[in-house]
């Protein structure tokens, strides 16, 4: 089925609130999702994965700070989606980069990491250069780097497979974000390493993708939409003849 961006924004916000997110967290998560979809970057697929892994019996716990100094912060996200755990740590890193010129944020054990691009775009729009790195899979080893120039909400993206596996190849479900106040951090591939470039998106490609996505609208699987509606229903109150009076007489 086709839906509008406003519908996706509105329903996902309600669904996130139904899942226990705070209003602000839900708003940020819905924005991240819509940003991904607006550039045709598969936000709904990532959301679907997140919903499959979510249980109302075990709502998301906030990330725990493992290490923090004035330039570096490391958090353990406890295997929750970046939709739920990334916005305030990123704001913390933003604050540190403002004060110190550069900061590093490491979010360990988090899921649907590509969705973080939606929030990085917001930080870049506020004048911050941002680069994020994560590994999509260990075998084959694929890595993804996303870079935003300050004041641009459109990233450069590189996804590549590394041919030679390092000896130490433990599963890495973390994400590393570097923020710099004054220096561009856009990804440029080095040629002396063997790799296969799987995807390369620059600003112009993504703007074209955005234009296409706007024209085409958003196509969403009915099952996923229904799941969002079910979560959203958790924010609604059962109706009774008494509660109907709460809206006034009406006619």
């Amino acid at each position, binding site marked *: 089925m086709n839906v509008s961006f406003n519908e996706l924004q509105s329903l996902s916000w309600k669904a996130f609130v139904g899942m226990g997110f705070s209003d*602000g967290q839900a708003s940020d998560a819905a924005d991240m999702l819509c940003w991904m979809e607006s550039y045709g970057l598969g936000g709904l697929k990532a959301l679907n994965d997140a919903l499959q892994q979510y249980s109302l019996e075990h709502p998301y716990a906030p990330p725990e700070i493992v290490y923090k100094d004035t330039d570096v912060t490391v958090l353990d996200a406890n295997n929750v989606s970046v939709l739920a755990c990334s916005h305030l740590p990123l704001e913390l890193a933003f604050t540190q980069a403002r004060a110190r010129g550069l900061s590093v944020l490491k979010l360990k054990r988090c899921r649907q990491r590509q969705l973080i691009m939606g929030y990085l775009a917001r930080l870049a729009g506020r004048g911050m250069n941002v680069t994020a790195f994560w590994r999509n899979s260990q075998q084959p080893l694929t890595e993804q780097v996303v870079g935003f120039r300050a004041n641009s909400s459109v990233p450069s993206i590189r996804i590549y497979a590394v041919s030679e596996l390092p000896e130490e190849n433990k599963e890495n479900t973390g994400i590393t974000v570097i923020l710099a106040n004054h220096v561009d951090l856009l990804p440029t591939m080095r040629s002396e390493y063997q790799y296969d470039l799987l995807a390369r998106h620059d600003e112009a490609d993504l703007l074209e993708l955005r234009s296409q996505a706007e024209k085409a*609208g958003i196509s969403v699987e009915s099952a996923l939409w229904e799941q969002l509606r079910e979560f959203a229903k958790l924010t*609604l109150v059962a109706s009774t003849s008494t*509660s109907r009076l709460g809206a006034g007489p009406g006619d």
Partner: protein
Amino acid sequence: MINDPATSLAPVLRPAATVMDLLRLGSLSSSRLSFSRSLIRKMGRQRWQIFQTRFDLDEHGYGEVIYRIQTPYARYHVVIFSRELDDAHRSDRVIADAWDLTFGLVEGDVEDTLMASLSENVPLQEAGRQHAKLLVISRANRSVRNFSAFVDQLSQGKQPEVALLHSAGYLYRTTAVYGNGKFGIADFSKLKENPDFRTPFSAQMLAVYVLRQFSIDQVEHIAAHRRGAPISLSTALKRYVGIGNSTGLGMAPFLINHPLLINQWVHMRETALALAKQQIPDEASQQRLLELMARASASLAECTIEDSEQNSRNEQVVLELDSVQAWLSQVPAEEDLWIQLTDWADAALSLETQELINTLLIELYPDYVDVLEDSMATEETMDLSPDMPLVQLKQLIETHMDWTLSDELQSTDGRYWFWYRSIEKEEPRLGIRGVDEGEEKELALAIGPRVQRVHCAIEAHLAEDPRALTIDYLMANPRESDIVRRIQTMAGSAYGEIRANLWHRDMKPMHLLRAKLSFLGAQRFDPRGDRWVRVTFFQGAPLLSELNAEPADLNDFDDWSFALSSGTVAEPPRTP
């Protein structure tokens, strides 16, 4: 006389504490900056053409009708489905699932496949999956009394009694007008580059305006069938037919959830008022104000309003305007006449009269005011400033949101209501705290109590860490990120926050509804209790035939506020 804008002093705007008081917002009248007014002006100026391209109605008026709208930039269509409705199913509430008619505004042409999709889905409204070429969908119910009487009298060859329109100034009333991506229709973002509908709610207003013509065409069609010969309403009567709207609590969350947009609307209105008050009156502008007052007064006097409280307010306005006219007709046009007038109104007259006078002052200076209509939209992004010292955040609250700190939240009355959405079509409702079900799912619409709570928490945090930053506070209180972001953003916008405790037992949601409806261009506020209101749009507005005739005098074309059933302007007292 109009001052040269180049030499004008910057206008002095009224303080937010005055303007954003809920009682005052609940006393606003629509003005020439309201969206219905600016749409009509634009259509006249740009020579829009609107005409029927399909009129397939049976003798009872059921069937499908299409109107084409041609602007200098594009073509649109309003598609209307009129279906029989059992009287027992006629309800204005959002929980209704059938209406006398449903309609939509379509971008571009309506080819057969699109028409089939519209026919299947538009009548279902929220329950349908709407097409992305739709910019607006809506539905309307008949004013059963007016519709029947109009058809009966017209079919007998008589012009219907105009008095019918004194108690309800319409044949149909809409019960919801949806835009911005609702149920699959086009997002408002798609319209931001569209020169026809960049102004907020202009697409909705166009759909409603065309529906008004349909209501006239349909009545004439049914009457002609009954009579066996064509028959028309008089032009004066057609002009006096508006379109009703029935609005409930569903409108209230919009005002709270769009503070930057509300700020923009109010800011433009206040700028218009300040510019008007800054002008030096002359005899012509003084006489024009007297004419407008006489018309507004007569328009209010001839309305029959069911709600006794609103009726009393209207009667008071009429009485007070009598005094003002008597004074204004005798005083010389001194340089500070408008200031004298508004100072007197502020000191001695009711809120409703004050704001009506302000509306009429704005009306006097189209050369200054009308340009502001292009600035009614705004970006609505709220950003966090995480590196703001927490003590500065506290200071922002105490400086810009001090009104939240005086709310009495501990008493039963101070925290009486809670807002929630019902599972029935997500209808917003009010529940009594501690009595009604659903408190744990409360909507965070009461900004004042939230800000007060954050202020207390910040004080506690600062006691422990006086040099803390905002992000330090938020890492410890992650559920407050949205309200902190709002406080930081709105500190730079004077008019976004409505200054009232929306939990308080004495809070009247009606005032919220009226505030928004006045910006849309609603007239004749007729409350049904404190949570429901019926209003009229486009009463007195030019007809499609007048628009299509390409009016030569655009000022006259635009001069339709405060409609009178006589179709003429009441005679004002003369200046000496």
